[in-house]
């Protein structure tokens, strides 16, 4: 399970977390919080993409490093180079992490026809699908999906929910319309304060 201890994170003029601790104890967890509270910032820290913080991130009670090896993140905060195709993005991730491109899931999401489309030409829904595929394909024990249903069509949300239902690791999501996820067993947990 993911646990945060005494996190201190500050941007130039904004203190985001001060002595922040939280324990995400459910295996399928929907983190709730208003816009701008720091959900995405926390996710990038847990995923090991932002090393500029003080505090501890524990995975299964242990400080595992590098976090990137254990946690995959799908978020708008991780921008893809716009002149690469979706296939090129996925193949880079495949080469970097020695994992396969999830062609079957892409097919289920109706994304196969867009694999050779440039990132700049993808619709926001397809861009979200690319983010999700890029994180899911890494097969990490911890998965973080930032707004996974934003801009996704109904069928896309269903496919993702189906996939998440069978996922055995821990998954954190942030979502402002969480009902489809609550239906498959997600529990809500506020960003600040205990459940």
């Amino acid at each position, binding site marked *: 399970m993911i646990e945060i201890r005494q996190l201190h994170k500050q941007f130039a003029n904004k203190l985001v977390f001060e002595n922040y601790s939280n324990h995400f104890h459910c295996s399928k967890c929907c983190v709730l919080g208003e816009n701008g509270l720091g959900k995405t910032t926390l996710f990038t820290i847990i995923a090991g993409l932002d090393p500029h913080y003080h505090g501890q991130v524990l995975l299964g009670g242990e400080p595992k490093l590098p976090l990137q090896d254990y946690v995959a993140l799908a978020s708008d905060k991780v921008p893809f180079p716009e*002149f*690469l195709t979706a296939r*090129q993005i996925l*193949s880079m991730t495949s080469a970097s992490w020695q994992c396969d491109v999830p062609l079957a899931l892409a097919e289920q999401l109706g994304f196969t026809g867009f694999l050779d489309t440039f990132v700049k030409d993808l619709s926001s829904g397809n861009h979200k699908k690319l983010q999700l595929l890029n994180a899911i394909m890494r097969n990490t024990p911890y998965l973080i999906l930032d707004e996974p249903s934003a801009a996704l069509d109904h069928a896309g949300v269903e496919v993702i929910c189906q996939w998440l239902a069978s996922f055995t690791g821990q998954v954190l999501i942030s979502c402002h319309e969480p009902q489809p996820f609550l239906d498959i067993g997600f529990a809500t947990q506020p960003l600040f304060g205990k459940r």
Partner: protein
Amino acid sequence: MTYLQYRITAYRYALKTLFKQLNQFALMISTLFYIFLPGLIAAMFFGLGKIVQSDSEHTSSQVMWGCLLLQTLLLNVLKPVILDDAHRMFHHSLIKNKSTIITADIAQLLISHVLLWMSIVLALAMGFDKLMKAPHFVGFVLTQVSMGVTLLYRPQAVVLTLITAFVLLSMTLSNLAYLAWFNAVMLMSCFVKPIRLSYSPTQLTVWSFWILYCVHYSWSLIWRVSASLLVIWAVAIIGAERPELLHWYTPMVALFALLIWASLGIKTTQYISEHRLFWVSLKQFGTLKKAQHVLIFVWYFLSWLTGAILLGMDGFSLVILAQVPVLQWCATNIPQRLAVCWGSLAVTTYLAKALM
């Protein structure tokens, strides 16, 4: 507010924004070169004078090609301002008649075309009688206009024309014939279907990523390559007139190229920071930055080598080559101090040259 009033307002606003973006570069140029600015303008008139009258028609044709390349670089920077690119759909929602939009475009092109003004000033200073003795200069002025208009609507035709016209320089043509060919090629190129350069490697590495970056942001490279070549070419022409001064100019060529290629570090570093998390997520961030420096060095080295071959550079040019890592480091880590660092290196190099 009428449509034309809107275009003037939009033009002023876009120009102000562009100058804000170029603020640092403009400040650097004006600080470091303000003494030389009148000389630079005089050099431009010297170049135009070479078109009017030169020892050989071939030299005139070469200068014409160089001036047209320079105007293409300058106008391409101003093109989004001239066309009000950001609000083009808005224009079409206002105006049914396309000719009104085109008229406004061309009017703003003529206002923005500084090199055309200079040619007109020279033509007026020459007077009608002298101008009639150099009809190719009138042809050159007309080509400046036709090429400017083509750049607005058919930029690919301009590129194809410049390439073809460069090849035509190797043939013995009169100035008028050269300009006639130039315009004929440009007209034909307008009907060439868009050529798309595509490079799509199946296995993408940081190295092939930078190649893709160069293809996608080709303008960043094109203007740097063109500016480097223009400076080498201008110094070669001056060197033909005053060979004894060439050794003073050649280090400046290398230094100028160093500045414009090092500035590529600012742009690429900005791109890297915008996509930092993506590269971190791939564990390739460090490799990407190393490849960035190699890429910039290779481009600079090619430019330096061209100068060395064409101008015969000396030991001081080698010293400048050794300064590349310093300036690359400045461009990527302290971009706001790039101009100062470059200025210091340039002054030190020339001081050493004067003392030795």
